[in-house]
C-alpha cells in the first residue's frame, strides 16, 4: 500500500468557530480528493477553537489547546499560557513531521511560534483570509516566503480566481500575481518573491448548496410550521461578548410576530441563557448550514462563514456588523449591501438592533419580491467551489500531477457522497480505482457503484472483480458490474456479512468458463442455499468438494456447481 500522507492543520486563532470551519472545509475536500487518488490522509488538527464538536461531526481528530479566552476566564497567567502554547505547537509539529503543513490566517503563528518549525514540514500551505487593514500586514509578509503555496480566500462580490486547473469556475484564468499584487490583497501586500505561489480561491465553505437538505426535509428538521416565515437569527458562533444581548433583543422584538418562526442559531460557543418558545427553534449544534434551504430569510452577524453560507444557500439576509480584532465585518456589510445582496442592519453600541431599522428590515424581508431580488443577487456574488479548489492546491504540493488529475476527475459530489456513505478506506479505494481505471468520470463510476446492494461491502465486490479478466474499457466494466449485481443480489439473501465475505474470498472460480455462465450457475446455487436454509459455510464446503479438480473443463465445472446446488437442496448427495 502507498504510504499515508501526514497533514498537520494549524487552526490556532482564538476561541471562535470561523477559522476551524474554514480549515475543516479545506481538509474535508483534501480527504475526498486523496480518497479519489487512493491515498490515505492522516490529518492532525491543532486548534484553540472551543467548538471541537464541529471537527467531531466532520470526522477529524482535533488536538486542542485552550483558547486565550478560556485561559483568561480560568485566570491562568498569560506568560505561562503563551510558553505552554508555543512549546506545544513546536513539539507537535516536530514530532509529527508532516508531509504538509496547512496554516490558517497567521503565517507566523498566532503566538509567533511557527517561525522555528517552518523548516520541519516537507511542504507548506498558507490560507490567507482577509484581515483588517493595518493588521500587522508587514509581519505577515515576512513569513510568506516560507510557504510553497498561498491560497487567498476571496470575498463574495469582489473575488477573482486563479484557474490553472479544470475547476468549475465562472471566471477566466487570472494572472493574479502579475496584475494585482502591487495592491494590498486581503490586507496584505505580497512580496515579489512569493507572487508566483499565490492563488485566489472563492470563499471556502463547509457545505456547498448541493450538499444541503431539501427545503421540506430542512423545515421538518428545524421544526418550522407550514406556512410560517422561517427567519434565521444568528450572532455568529456564539462566542462574541455581545452575542447573548443581541440575540435576546432580536428574539424579544420578533417573537410577538405571529407569522414568523424564529430559528435561532445561537452557535456552539453560546453560553448564555437559551430562549425557547412555541415559535422559536433554538440551536447550538454545528452544521446547521445543512438546513439552510428551509429558511425564508435571515438576520445575521456578518462573520465570513455565516455570511457566505447564507448567500450561497440563497437566503435573503440582513447583516449586522460585530466588532472583531481581525475581521472587518462593517466593510463586508457595506460591500454586500452596495452590491444589493444583503440588507444592512445597524446595532447600537450595546449590541442591540436599532428598532426602526429592524422594523424596516422585517418589512422588507416579508415582501416576496424583495426576497427574490436578494436571493438572486446573493447567489450571483458568491462563487462556489472554494474548499475544493483550495484542497486541490494543497494536494498539488504532495501528489504527482497524474495522480491528482485522475482524482480530480473522479471527485464528483455524487461519488464523494457514495464514498463517505460507505466509509471506504484509502486502501479499498486504491484497489477500486485500479480495477476501474477505464472509467475516469466520477459520476459514471458513482452510477455503477450506487447499484451495489447495501448489505454487500465494496471489499466483497473488489474480491469478485479481481477474478474477472482485466477490465479494459467501459463496456467491460459495465458488464462486470452487471455480473456483480446479479451475484450480490443472490448473495445478500443468505448468511451474514462475515459469511458472505468468506464465501466470496474462497468461492471456486474457473478461469476457463465464461464469467456470465459461472455467475448464472452460482446464482442458482445461492438460490438453492437460501431456499434450503443452508449455512453459507457448508454451502462453500459442498461447492469446493464438487468443483475440485474440474476448473480446467468449463462444462464439467458448470455441471459441478449445479450438482452442488442439488446436494444443498436435498441436504445430502442423493442415493441411498
Amino acid at each position: 500500500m502507498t504510504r499515508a500522507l501526514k497533514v498537520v492543520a494549524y487552526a490556532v486563532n482564538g476561541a471562535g468557530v470561523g477559522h476551524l470551519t474554514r480549515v475543516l472545509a479545506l481538509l474535508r475536500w483534501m480527504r475526498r480528493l486523496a480518497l479519489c487518488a487512493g491515498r490515505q490522509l492522516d490529518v492532525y488538527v491543532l486548534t484553540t477553537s472551543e467548538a471541537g464538536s464541529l471537527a467531531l461531526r466532520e470526522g477529524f481528530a482535533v488536538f486542542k489547546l485552550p483558547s486565550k479566552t478560556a485561559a483568561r476566564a480560568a485566570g491562568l497567567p498569560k506568560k505561562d499560557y503563551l510558553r505552554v502554547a508555543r512549546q506545544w505547537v513546536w513539539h507537535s509539529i516536530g514530532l509529527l513531521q508532516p508531509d504538509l503543513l496547512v496554516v490558517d490566517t497567521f503565517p507566523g503563528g498566532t503566538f509567533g511560534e511557527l517561525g522555528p518549525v517552518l523548516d520541519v514540514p516537507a511542504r507548506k500551505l498558507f490560507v490567507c483570509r482577509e484581515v483588517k487593514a493595518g493588521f500587522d500586514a508587514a509581519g505577515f509578509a515576512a513569513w510568506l516566503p516560507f510557504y510553497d503555496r498561498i491560497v487567498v480566500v476571496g470575498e463574495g462580490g469582489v473575488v477573482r480566481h486563479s484557474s490553472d486547473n479544470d475547476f468549475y469556475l465562472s471566471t477566466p484564468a487570472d494572472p493574479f500575481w502579475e496584475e494585482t499584487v502591487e495592491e494590498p490583497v486581503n490586507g496584505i501586500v505580497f512580496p515579489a518573491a512569493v507572487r508566483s505561489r499565490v492563488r485566489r480561491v472563492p470563499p471556502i465553505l463547509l457545505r456547498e448548496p448541493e450538499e444541503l437538505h431539501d427545503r421540506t426535509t430542512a423545515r421538518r428538521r428545524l421544526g418550522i410550521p407550514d406556512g410560517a416565515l422561517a427567519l434565521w437569527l444568528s450572532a455568529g458562533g456564539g462566542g462574541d461578548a455581545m452575542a447573548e444581548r443581541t440575540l435576546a433583543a432580536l428574539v424579544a422584538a420578533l417573537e410577538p410576530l405571529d407569522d414568523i418562526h424564529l430559528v435561532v442559531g445561537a452557535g456552539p460557543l453560546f453560553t448564555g441563557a437559551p430562549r425557547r418558545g412555541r415559535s422559536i427553534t433554538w440551536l447550538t449544534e454545528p452544521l446547521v448550514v445543512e438546513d439552510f434551504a428551509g429558511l425564508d430569510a435571515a438576520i445575521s452577524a456578518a462573520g465570513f462563514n455565516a455570511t457566505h453560507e447564507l448567500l450561497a444557500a440563497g437566503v435573503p439576509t440582513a447583516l449586522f456588523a460585530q466588532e472583531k480584532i481581525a475581521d472587518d465585518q462593517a466593510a463586508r456589510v457595506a460591500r454586500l449591501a452596495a452590491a444589493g445582496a444583503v440588507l444592512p442592519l445597524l446595532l447600537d453600541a450595546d449590541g442591540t438592533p436599532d428598532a426602526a431599522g429592524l422594523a424596516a428590515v422585517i418589512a422588507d424581508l416579508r415582501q416576496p419580491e424583495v426576497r427574490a431580488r436578494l436571493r438572486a443577487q446573493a447567489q450571483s456574488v458568491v462563487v462556489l467551489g472554494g474548499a475544493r479548489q483550495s484542497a486541490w492546491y494543497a494536494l498539488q504540493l504532495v501528489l504527482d500531477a497524474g495522480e491528482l488529475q485522475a482524482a480530480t476527475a473522479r471527485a464528483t459530489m455524487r461519488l464523494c457522497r457514495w464514498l463517505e456513505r460507505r466509509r471506504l478506506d484509502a486502501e479499498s479505494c486504491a484497489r477500486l480505482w485500479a480495477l476501474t481505471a477505464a472509467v475516469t468520470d466520477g459520476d459514471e463510476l458513482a452510477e455503477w457503484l450506487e447499484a451495489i446492494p447495501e448489505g454487500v461491502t465494496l471489499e466483497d465486490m473488489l474480491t469478485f472483480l479481481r477474478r474477472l479478466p482485466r477490465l479494459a474499457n467501459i463496456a467491460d466494466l459495465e458488464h462486470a458490474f452487471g455480473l456483480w449485481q446479479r451475484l450480490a443480489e443472490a448473495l445478500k439473501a443468505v448468511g451474514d456479512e462475515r459469511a458472505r465475505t468468506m464465501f466470496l474470498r474462497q468461492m471456486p472460480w474457473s478461469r476457463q468458463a465464461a464469467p456470465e455462465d459461472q455467475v448464472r450457475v452460482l446464482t442458482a446455487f445461492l438460490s438453492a442455499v437460501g431456499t434450503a436454509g443452508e449455512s453459507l459455510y457448508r454451502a462453500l464446503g459442498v461447492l469446493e468438494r464438487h468443483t475440485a479438480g474440474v476448473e480446467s473443463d468449463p462444462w464439467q465445472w458448470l455441471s459441478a456447481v449445479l450438482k452442488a446446488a442439488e446436494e444443498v437442496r436435498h441436504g445430502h448427495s442423493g442415493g441411498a
Partner: protein
Amino acid sequence: MHVSQFLSLAQQRRMELQRALAALPTELMGRHREREKALDQLREKTLDALAEVNLPTLDQATLDAVERFTGYGRFRGLNLAAHLAAERERLTQRIAVIMADERFVRREELLDPTAGVLTLRARQAREELALIESGLQRYEQEPDFLDLYRRGYRTPSYRQSVLSLQYYKDWKRGDEITEKFGCKTFSEVRAAYENLLRGKAVCQQTLKSIEDDIRQVRELITELNTAHQRLGNLPQAVLGDFRRMLREHLALADRKQLFQWAGGDRVRESLIKQLDGIERQIAYTKAMVEHRLEEERRYLSEQLTRLNQKIAKYSRQKYQNAWLSPNKAQAWLRDPRERLAAQRERFWRQYDRVATYDRYDRYDFAADMLWWDVITDGRLDGDFIPEVYQYRQAHPGYTYVRPPEPQSTYYQGIDVS
C-alpha cells in the same frame, strides 16, 4: 595451490552445490509434509469431535440446540420424527423399485462369472476387439504405411510434388506395400485398413455399452445393500448425515464467530480454540518452511555464483601457471553447507516448537491476540508471515505478554486428542 588443482576442486564443489540446490525442496518439504499430514489429521479429528459435541445424539432437543451453539440453521424447524419417517419411506420405495427392476431380478443370469449373459457378451466383444486390433497391427507395423496413409497417398489430399525425391520414394514404398498385402492398388490397402478401423470403433462402442450395463447392475446391487443397511439402522445413519453436514459448516465457519456461538461452553470453546490453533499451525509451518527454502536457495545460489566467477576468472589463459594463496583458495572452496546445516538445525527446532504446540487454551478470542505470539511465546520474529506482519504494522510498539494461566481445569480437564 596451483590453479589447475584449484579449478579441479572448484568444479567438484560446484557440482556438489548444484546437487544440494536441486535437493533442497525434497529435503525441506519432505519433513514438512509429514508434519503437515499429522496436523491435518489432528484437524480432521478435532472437527469430528466438535461435530460430535454439538450433535451427540439424534433427538429433537439436540437438533434444536445446534443453531444456538454453531450458527448452523439447516435443522431449524426440522421435525425429526417426520424426517425419519420420510427417509424410511424413501428408502422403502427405493428398495421396492430396485427389486422390481428387471436388471436386478436377472442379476445372476446377467453377471454370473462364467455363464452370465453380460459376462459372455463382454468376453466376446473383447475377443473381437483383440482380433481387429491384431489385424490393424499388421498394417501399422509395416514400415512407412502409416506415414503414407496419413499423408493421403493416392488420394486427392496427397500434396507431394512430382519434382521431389520423396514423391518417388513414396511411389516405390506404396507399390511394395500393395504387393505385400496382395492388393492391386494402394487404395485397396487403404480401404482394407479403414474397414478394420471402423470395425474397431464399433467393437469398442459395443464393449463400452456392455460394461455400462454391468456397472449399472452392480450399482443397483450396491445401492440395495446400502439401503437395507441404512434402513436397518436409520437413526444412526441420519445422525451420521447430520454430523457430516454440520462438520462441513464447522470446517469453514469463522472461528471467532463460532467461539461466540459456543456461548461460554468450555468443551466447545476448547475444541474451537484447538481447531483454530491447528489451522494457524498448518499455515505458520508452511510459511516457515517456504521462507527457509527461499533463504537457503538464495544463499546457495549466491555461493554458486561466486564460485562460478572464480572458476571463470582462473580458467583464463593468463592464470594457467598461477599459484594461489592456500588460505584464499581454501576460503573460496569452503563448503557453504556447513553453515547452512547449523542454521537448519536451529530452524527445525523453531519449526517443531510451532508444529507441536498444544496449549491452545492460552489463546483468547476476546483479546486482540496473535496466534503466532501465543505459539512462540513472542520469541520468534514472524514478519515473513503476512498475517504477523500486518498485525505488527497495525500495532506499532506492541510487545507480547503471556497472559496468566487459566484458573480452572480448562485445559487439563478435557481430553480433546
